[in-house]
């Protein structure tokens, strides 16, 4: 701490600080440029976080130790994380549209920015101050002590008002994002009745783990005959078109496994294949007992979930006939 204090207390900057500045300042500018120019909002956020960390180092070099730490904790820690949270809510893949609503707005904006930059830089160049005082006196008791002494005496009213401001901001944010529920929550019974009334998918959707060959949620589970079932993937992923293809090797593996099982069952219990629902009726023909008719009717309703079973069972039935 004492070395740091002396470092910032000097009335001219050391070579070390110059090296730090010339290494980090270009990085900060590049980070700011990337924040403005990168099309993905997440990339912009990461570049901005980098720039903020570099600014924190500059604060430390300028003797503002408290602010340097607060910059890292509050800005890169809290504010940027809040930004990332909202980005995740809004959708990471959302990119800027390149369509200009106002013609020539981009060039006008760039020109305005350039003008502002020239104005600011020339203004600083005009007001050149050769020497500077340094913080030796002010930071004598330590930077935090000095800040606290000012904050709780001369600026105590402003400090209290900031407290009120933060409270109001917190209340405002919860009020803004709060959504009032207009209709009543459906009970489980009502949901069940509605599902039966609709009749499209009475049973629960097939679980992704059954016959799945992968842990990822965007990979569909495989039906017993090896075809991937779209129903096992989350509806949101299906709507976004983010369902991944199942590898052909995995499909072949399942097919081979099924064939092996079918052969095994064909040898060990030849008469069990009667329970086959729909496929058996197609391939089995007249020699099947009438019990298949009822099972077929029962299985007819629930679509994709049972077709796989049917295909596997039909293979079973074929084995049984031999």
């Amino acid at each position, binding site marked *: 701490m004492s070395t740091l204090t002396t470092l910032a207390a000097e009335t001219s*900057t050391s070579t070390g600080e110059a090296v730090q500045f010339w290494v980090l300042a270009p990085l900060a500018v590049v980070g700011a440029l990337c924040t403005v120019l990168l099309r993905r909002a997440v990339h912009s956020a990461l570049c*901005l976080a980098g720039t903020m960390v570099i*600014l924190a180092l500059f604060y430390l070099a300028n003797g503002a130790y408290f*602010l340097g730490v607060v*910059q890292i904790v509050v800005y890169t820690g809290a504010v940027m994380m809040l930004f990332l949270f909202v980005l995740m809510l809004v959708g990471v893949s959302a990119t800027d549209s390149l369509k200009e609503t106002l013609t020539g707005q981009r060039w006008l904006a760039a020109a305005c920015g350039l003008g502002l930059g020239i104005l600011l830089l020339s203004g600083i160049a005009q007001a050149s101050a050769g020497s500077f005082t*340094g913080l030796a006196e002010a930071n004598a008791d330590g930077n935090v002590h000095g800040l606290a002494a000012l904050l709780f005496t001369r600026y105590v009213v402003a400090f209290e008002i900031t407290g009120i401001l933060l409270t109001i*901001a917190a209340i405002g944010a919860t009020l803004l994002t709060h959504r009032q529920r207009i209709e009543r929550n459906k009970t489980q019974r009502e949901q069940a009745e509605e599902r039966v009334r609709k009749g499209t998918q009475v049973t629960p959707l097939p679980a992704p783990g059954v016959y799945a060959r992968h842990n990822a949620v965007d990979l569909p589970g495989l039906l017993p005959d090896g075809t991937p079932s779209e129903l096992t993937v989350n509806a949101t992923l299906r709507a976004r078109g983010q369902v991944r293809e199942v590898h052909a090797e995995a499909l072949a593996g399942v097919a081979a496994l099924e064939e092996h099982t079918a052969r095994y069952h064909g040898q060990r219990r030849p008469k069990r294949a009667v329970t086959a629902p729909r496929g058996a009726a197609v391939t089995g023909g007249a020699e099947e007992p009438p019990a298949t008719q009822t099972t077929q009717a029962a299985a007819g309703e629930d679509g994709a979930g049972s077709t796989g079973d049917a295909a596997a069972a039909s293979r079973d039935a074929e084995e049984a006939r031999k």
Partner: protein
Amino acid sequence: MNPENYLYLAALLFTLGACGVLLRRNAIVVFMCIELMLNAANLLLVTFSRMHGNLEGQIMAFFVMVVAAAEVVVGLAIIVMVYRSRHSASVDDASLMKL
């Protein structure tokens, strides 16, 4: 090295932030550029604090940080609300006061 270089850097960052606000359409990126401008102003205040040898500049920077935090909270809440009603975070789409 002259500490004025910090002032030039701050001016440059502020300009870049201003350009971003004017150029970008995504409301969140516009917000991030505003944060960049606030940070540039903070760097300026901290440098001035060192140049003049008192801590007033750092106190100002501290208050800017607190106000920026409050602003981010409310602003992001507004963005989330606009996104909910319009399914877009583009500033061009939010052209009406209400739907």
